[in-house]
């Protein structure tokens, strides 16, 4: 079973040289720590950065330089900053090659719910709806089940959705799954996790084709 850092590490294997990538808050942010040395990717932050760098050194933090999670960050050489409408033109106009975000639920059709729990959590969608409506390549990073053990990979989302038929891949603590033709297709198992265990934790349709390899981290 993977921890959060290992989920991020596995997602980092999906990165390709030259890509512009938007990372959501939470596990997705950790992906930046595992970019392979031999490729160059630029991270976009939707508040207006392309080429986001690591956190600043202590004492060098700047209130005017934050990411979309409102954390102080730095710029890499070759970075650019811009306004919000330009930022979402990049997103809506499909100039960003990969979006990684967290979710509360994902359906077998690729619907995603991650912005609202009616009557409980009312924080808003931020940029998530714009991202999922336009991105061609969306990977969800999340735990396979919720705190009470119920599957988060469902036939249909029960929470208000953020976008329809948009998620292409899900990486959880248990597995890597591709979404196509109305089902989750099991691609890889986490080390030490059996196919049976994944079946038991997946409520939505799960296709298991032949021998399923273990993830290589």
């Amino acid at each position, binding site marked *: 079973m993977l921890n959060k850092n290992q989920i991020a590490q596995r997602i980092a294997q999906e990165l390709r040289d030259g890509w512009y990538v938007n990372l959501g808050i939470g596990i997705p942010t950790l992906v930046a720590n595992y970019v392979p040395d031999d490729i160059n990717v630029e991270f976009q*932050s*939707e*508040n*207006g*950065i392309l080429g986001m760098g*690591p*956190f*600043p*050194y*202590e*004492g*060098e*933090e*700047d*209130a*005017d*330089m*934050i*990411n*979309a*999670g*409102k*954390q*102080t*960050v730095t710029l890499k050489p070759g970075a650019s*900053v*811009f*306004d*919000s*409408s330009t*930022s*979402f033109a990049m*997103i*809506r106009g499909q100039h960003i090659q990969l979006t990684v975000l967290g979710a509360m639920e994902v359906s077998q059709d690729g*619907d995603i719910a991650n912005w*609202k729990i009616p*009557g409980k959590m*009312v*924080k*808003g*969608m*931020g*940029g*998530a*709806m*714009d991202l999922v*409506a*336009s991105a061609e390549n969306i990977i969800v990073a999340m735990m396979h089940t919720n705190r009470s053990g119920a599957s988060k990979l469902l036939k249909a989302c029960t929470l*208000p*959705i*953020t*976008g*329809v038929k948009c998620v292409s891949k899900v990486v959880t603590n248990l597995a890597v799954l591709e979404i196509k033709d109305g089902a989750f297709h099991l691609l890889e198992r986490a080390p030490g996790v059996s196919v049976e265990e994944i079946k038991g934790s997946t409520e939505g349709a799960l296709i298991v084709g032949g021998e399923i390899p273990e993830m290589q981290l």
Partner: protein
Amino acid sequence: MNKVYKNAAEALEGVNSDMTFMLGGFGLCGIPENAISELVRRGIKGLTCISNNAGVDDFGLGLLLQKRQIKKMISSYVGENDEFERQMLSGELEVDLIPQGSLAERCRAGGAGIPAFFTPAGYGTEVSEGKEMRYFNGKPHILETALTADFAFVKAWKGDKYGNLIYKGTARNFNPVMAMAGKITVAEVEELVEPGVLDPYFIHTPGVFVQRIFQGTNYEKRIEQRTVRPKKDAK
């Protein structure tokens, strides 16, 4: 051509209860701190505020929420503010949550003379309820309308007496599009200079979008999430 006002109190002349305001900023980054303080001081009420976020409990728009001056918020993300959540859940505060990119584009459209536009963002979600839907290139889109405001309050790093503005870092965010969409746009700057001092090639907001400008004071520039690396990592 002199758009300079002495301070926030003078520059906000004409603001009234029940008006609609736009306020630039992302979280607490690039917010018009002086204008917000002046709105609190004036105690006007029934305000509709268009702003990506709603501040934190004791800073930014949170200061107006504390005083119950806001009737309606139009935002994309409002976490980080317990008083906001309380007022929303109790029904005291009307809230219109809209996708961040649609919010930015609705402001831009409002300033650019485009009454509405189609976007894929929000299709099939609560956001699309009651909105016109159309297919373009085989993909569903929803109609979003432009936003304008009686006053737009923006914060820039440097500005000149003609209202030309330059923003610093990510403090730019919503400020340029809101500057475009205000009937009266009031810019507050950290450094107010004579025309000709700022390089015309590097102006972010051309002065035509700004009606009033003033030299701001006492910027707090609070950091919401101070994240750092220890110095010993330094090579």
